[in-house]
């Protein structure tokens, strides 16, 4: 005979219902709707909608803008993941070795760039690197160096990545700092007694013990890289020659500037697929590294 639902199960259902409703309303329904929209030639305004099947996806695959966004994500990762990790580690080690009395103040000061408006920073940077700025005039007149910072793909890309590294390193440094602080002092003392130098101690003791925090940092960073928007939007518009464009920038432009919302939805779905696969790959590799470190 089938047993009735237990009280415990009922209470579980009651408490989990809000989350399920939330997930259905804010994740599942929009996702299904986005998939449906991606099969339409529709600007969200027209009374007539045209079903195009996979047409938007095929257009996206052949679009040089979408291809650039796809490849640029890996370019951004190639620079930002090592860049931020190294800077964040440097900041964390620096903070870790500061006297306790001033550690808090310095931690906050490195965190401030993260709170700074990306818009404000971009405006200042744009002005600083403009052709007629004092900096560029000095380079041309005094050093005979003429760099088109935002017209040449390489410097444009590195200015954007430089801003992002400056902005977020302090935030990730806090995660690494927390890991550093969690290592018992006795372990370092024991290593010192065994004759380990500072550098040996860092690479053979500290780093293996905090490697799992790097997994967190890298996965969070990868997620953030897929969401790059305001810096290229404000500084380069994704140019020159699409060298700095990103998924979100193309998504925004396609959906809300060109009003090609069906294509925008297809770009969003492709973006989600790339995020899913990339994050899975990264976590797989990181888990292997973490396992080997233990």
């Amino acid at each position: 005979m089938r047993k009735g639902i237990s009280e415990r199960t009922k209470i579980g259902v009651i408490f989990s219902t809000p989350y399920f409703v939330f997930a259905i309303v804010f994740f599942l329904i929009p996702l299904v709707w986005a998939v449906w929209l991606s099969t339409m030639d529709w600007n969200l305004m027209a009374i007539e909608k045209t079903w195009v099947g996979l047409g938007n996806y095929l257009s996206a695959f052949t679009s040089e803008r979408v291809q650039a966004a796809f490849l640029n994500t890996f370019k951004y990762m190639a620079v930002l993941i090592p860049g931020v990790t190294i800077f964040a580690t440097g900041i964390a080690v620096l903070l870790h070795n500061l006297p306790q009395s001033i550690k808090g103040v310095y931690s906050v000061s490195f965190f401030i760039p993260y709170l700074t408006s990306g818009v404000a920073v971009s405006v200042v940077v744009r002005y600083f690197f403009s052709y007629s700025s004092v900096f560029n005039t000095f380079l041309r007149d005094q050093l005979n160096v003429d760099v088109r910072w935002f017209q040449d793909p390489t410097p444009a890309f590195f200015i954007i990545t430089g801003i992002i590294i400056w902005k977020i390193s302090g935030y990730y440094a806090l995660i690494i700092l927390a890991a550093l602080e969690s290592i018992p002092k006795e372990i370092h003392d024991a290593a010192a007694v065994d004759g380990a130098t500072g550098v040996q101690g860092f690479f053979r003791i500290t780093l293996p013990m905090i490697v799992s925090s790097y997994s967190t940092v890298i996965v969070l960073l990868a997620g953030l890289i897929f969401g790059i928007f305001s810096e290229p939007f404000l500084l380069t518009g994704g140019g020159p020659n699409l060298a700095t464009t990103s998924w979100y920038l193309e998504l925004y432009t396609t959906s809300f500037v060109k009003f090609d919302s069906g294509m925008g939805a297809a770009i969003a779905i492709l973006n989600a697929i790339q995020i899913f696969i990339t994050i899975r790959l990264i976590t797989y590799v990181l888990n292997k590294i973490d396992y080997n470190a233990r």
Partner: protein
Amino acid sequence: MKVCNRGRLPGIVLLLITLVLSGGFASGGAEGASGSDLSVDFWTAPNQGQFDFWSAKAEAFNQAGVQVEGKSVYVNVQMMPETPSSEAGIQNALATGVAPAASENINRGFAATLAASGRVYELSDIPEFQAVVQARQMESILPGWAIDGGQYVIPLYANAMGYHWNVQGLKALGFDEDVPRTVAEIRTLITRFYERRQALKEQGISHLFIRPQLLRPEWWWDRWFDFQMQYLAFSEGGDWVSGDRITLDPGITEEVFEYFGMFGQSLQTAEDWTAFEMDTVPVVFQVSAPWDIPKYEAAGKVYGFGGDYVYGPPIVKQALDQPYTFADSKGIVFYKGGNISDLDHQGILAFISWVLTGERGAQTDIDWVKTTGMLPVRGDLLENPAFESIIASNPAYAYQAEVMPYAVPAMAHEKMVDIQTALGEKGLTPYIQSIMNSTSLNPADAAPFVHDAFEAMKREGELR
């Protein structure tokens, strides 16, 4: 004591959540409306000045007790959402069924998209529209606003774009009484600029022409104010696109590119938006923005050759050519949507007609200029005595009114953004990058850049 039947609890919780999420507890109904009233929404541009202007007009209208089919009409004024853009805000409102009955701040290009989407009313046969056209004497202006032969927009304002000259700089370069008007005069200006560069630097003038937007192809709208303005002047009013055909003349397009190319090193590309408000203006000219007139007045700048700045038309090839130019212009459209009933439409038409016609109409336009610094689209600006005092208050307005008949609004094409982005991205910006170091009055050949731009415009705009 038994408070609640446990078996029903999950259902009650679910119901409560559903009610909250669906807004079931939200208070409904528009403010000020009762059963016998008609409440309609009107959206303004996302700036305080225009919001205040329309709010005042709506308040006066609401107090007048105008009725439509026995119901008193109440107009609710809101700013349109600015994020991510006002056009996207309208897109979102139409998609979610919360669009207003009408809004201002719509350019001809976006109106073409709305018209093609079947979301705005065609106005030609509507009596209230005809009354507004008659009251503002806009008969000769309307053809420039037509979209596929129909009228979807009530033109509200038009800024005839041109150049804004620094009088001190002009005089230092030998233009004491008039602005340069032809390509030959611009060549003279550039030649003198390089000859007198050191002396100008000592006066605080470092560059001739400031136009950082030439290096920003993603700011597609700026092609209205540089490329299209000069193309219209060089071609005496030539079209950009007609139907699905690109109608730009490649030869004239090359001339426009090379006109900008002549400036070379004298072009200022730093993004300095306050150059003309400084005590010492560091450049000689920029593209004019008439909406800045109140700002210049606030900065103590005086219009005229005896003062600080003057306006001038776009540069023409020959002295006798007519300086056609781009009209930065926007107007009012009336939306169609499931949430907008025929009665709502009648109500908002009554409001717009009340505001823009009769004796009240001229006062509305005077208030508009005072608030925004932009001239209304009227065919009688220079003849109507009501505008005498405004025109006399600042000669910059007189200049604007004079050139307005030669000002052409944006193209009416659904792919306007793609087309204008392609021109900048594949043609104009790469060309300007190639001449930035030049001091030659005969800059690099623009033909390959124009060729690339045409290919890109055809591809992106699906044009022939």
